[in-house]
């Protein structure tokens, strides 16, 4: 036996056997197929939305209210103006409620409550809120603000339901960001004699601002797409309304109502509205991600 073949034989003992190699390839293949399956739905959804939705888009689609008249085909059913404006109004009010409260709670968790039992209880309940199905927020607001007051649906009640949904998202994302603010910054400010509230308002919050904005934008994007909390709180109506204490239309609710229609033109309006909603939400997501990337923290 020649020396070279002996060393080859020794090397061969360390080589991966064909069976193991096959299993490795098979598993890798499986993982790649799984990844492809994970990526496919988004592409399919976007493709189908564009194909169905773009054809419906027109100037009048965005500038007219839905009419409720479905007998004369696409020309008579109107557009989605009231739905777009309603969504913007409701989400704006929901943000006005949930952003200050949410960031306030996060500031408390990080600056004052850190390590206390009460803080971990609050954190636990915030996590509970995160897991509550969105339709239950609708039921809650229905019980308290509609049964409780003996009144009926209103735009602001829908906003309250959405703000409950946004709250845990704002709190948790703000908390993560506030924890990233370096302790040395706080300590320097305190050492210079700044009171706690000035440290928070002049040092901590400005430092965390881009991160906070990211969290808030993601919360808004989430709330803008929710149907269930609005269904029994803001109701649906056809006309454009700027009165938050009256019935108010919104994009998700409009889509939901249109999906169940037997008329093709109305279903097509749902596709156009869905494309509009998805574009709005993806834009918010994109902006949030860009801001997050430029943030100096993290």
């Amino acid at each position: 036996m020649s020396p070279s073949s002996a060393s080859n034989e020794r090397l061969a003992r360390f080589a991966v056997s064909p069976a193991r190699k096959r299993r490795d390839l098979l598993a890798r293949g499986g993982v790649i197929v799984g990844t492809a399956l994970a990526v496919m739905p988004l592409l399919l959804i976007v493709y189908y939305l564009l194909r169905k939705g773009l054809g419906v888009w027109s100037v009048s689609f965005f500038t007219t209210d839905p009419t409720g008249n479905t007998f004369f085909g696409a020309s008579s059913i109107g557009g989605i103006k009231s739905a777009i404006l309603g969504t913007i109004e409701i989400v704006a009010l929901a943000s006005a409620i949930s952003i200050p409260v949410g960031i306030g709670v996060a500031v408390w968790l990080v600056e004052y409550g850190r390590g206390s039992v009460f803080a971990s209880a609050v954190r636990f309940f915030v996590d509970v809120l995160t897991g509550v199905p969105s339709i239950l927020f609708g039921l809650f607001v229905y019980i308290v603000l509609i049964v409780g007051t003996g009144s009926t649906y209103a735009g602001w009640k829908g906003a309250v339901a959405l703000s409950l949904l946004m709250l845990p998202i704002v709190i948790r994302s703000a908390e993560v960001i506030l924890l990233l603010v370096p302790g040395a910054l706080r300590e320097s400010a305190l050492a210079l004699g700044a009171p706690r509230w000035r440290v928070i308002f002049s040092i901590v919050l400005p430092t965390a601002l881009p991160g906070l904005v990211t969290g808030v934008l993601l919360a808004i994007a989430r709330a803008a797409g929710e149907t269930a909390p609005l269904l029994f709180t803001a109701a649906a109506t056809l006309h454009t309304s700027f009165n938050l204490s009256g019935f108010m239309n919104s994009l998700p609710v409009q889509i939901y109502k249109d999906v169940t229609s037997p008329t093709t033109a109305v279903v097509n309006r749902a596709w156009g509205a869905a494309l509009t909603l998805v574009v709005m939400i993806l834009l918010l997501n994109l902006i949030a991600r860009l801001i997050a990337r430029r943030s100096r923290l993290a």
Partner: protein
Amino acid sequence: MEATPLASSGRSIVGRPLLARLPDRILKYGLSALSALILVLIVYFFFRLIGQARPAFEKEGVLGFVFGNNWDVGAEHFGALPLLVGTLITSGVALLIGVPVAVAAAVYVTELCPLRLRGGLTVLIELLAAVPSVVYGLWGIFFLAPKLQPAEQWLADRLSFIPFVGGGLVTIPNYFVAGLVLATMILPIVSAISREVMATVPPDHKEAALALGATRWEMIRMAVLPYCRSGIVGGAMLGLGRAIGEAIAVAIVIGDAPKLGHQLFAQGYSLAAAIVNEFGEAQGVHRSALFAAGLVLFVLTLIVNAIARLLVARAARTGGGRGGVENAAAGGQVIGGAAAGA
């Protein structure tokens, strides 16, 4: 040299006059009150929901409501078992399909894929969480369900010897399609948490496995997956919580048949879908029964989420991360936003 006492000037340097301390006090107690409000809110909601559900429970009995197999609005019989079973079937299908796919994607992104692809793939999966549930419903009923029907029928014919899957006529809206849509919806959160957990596996473990001659897959199977098990299970449970509570998408694709599910490809119903569909017209006991269904849903998601949190927190502890994984759980809910930012 003798040290001068700090407070020798008459006024303490460290202390502050009472008035100057006021804004601090206000902020501290104001924010504490705000935080306490959240606790109060949830407890208050729980009791109000019980109050509203009481008439239905009094009529059917608590167990009779939850395990009664008869949801007949016309005859005012409200046994929610068909809805409960529908919820379990659809979320079970969602887990069976969604979790392996999500974990595979996480494994690929963290261990196998070229660095250049990593960011793009992550964003593509995370953006699934940004699609509103009503759009999932729309897509599910007009694209997915009709496209799948022939395949489902073929499967049902071939597998007719299996009791639950085979036989029967496949309808366009059915449990399976609902489960599939839910699987897509839970993908981003399960995948985000799996990815975060896998990132905490110490490189030493992986390098040790490779140095001992393991192939890539053996390294993943022996070093990565066992280390991440509780984190992945936790992520799957969070996904389950999502799937159980999803209302609108399921209501659109499940087909509103309030009878006990005996066939995977038949129309069904779920707790959340019943609330969405019937609440608008419901009166009296019916409305109360829907509140009771909401209560069952609430309790179910609470249990599932509590277990999920515990598991994910444990994974974070063994991972030795500074709550990185736990925050990723929060981040996953925030459309993976915190994870993307961190």
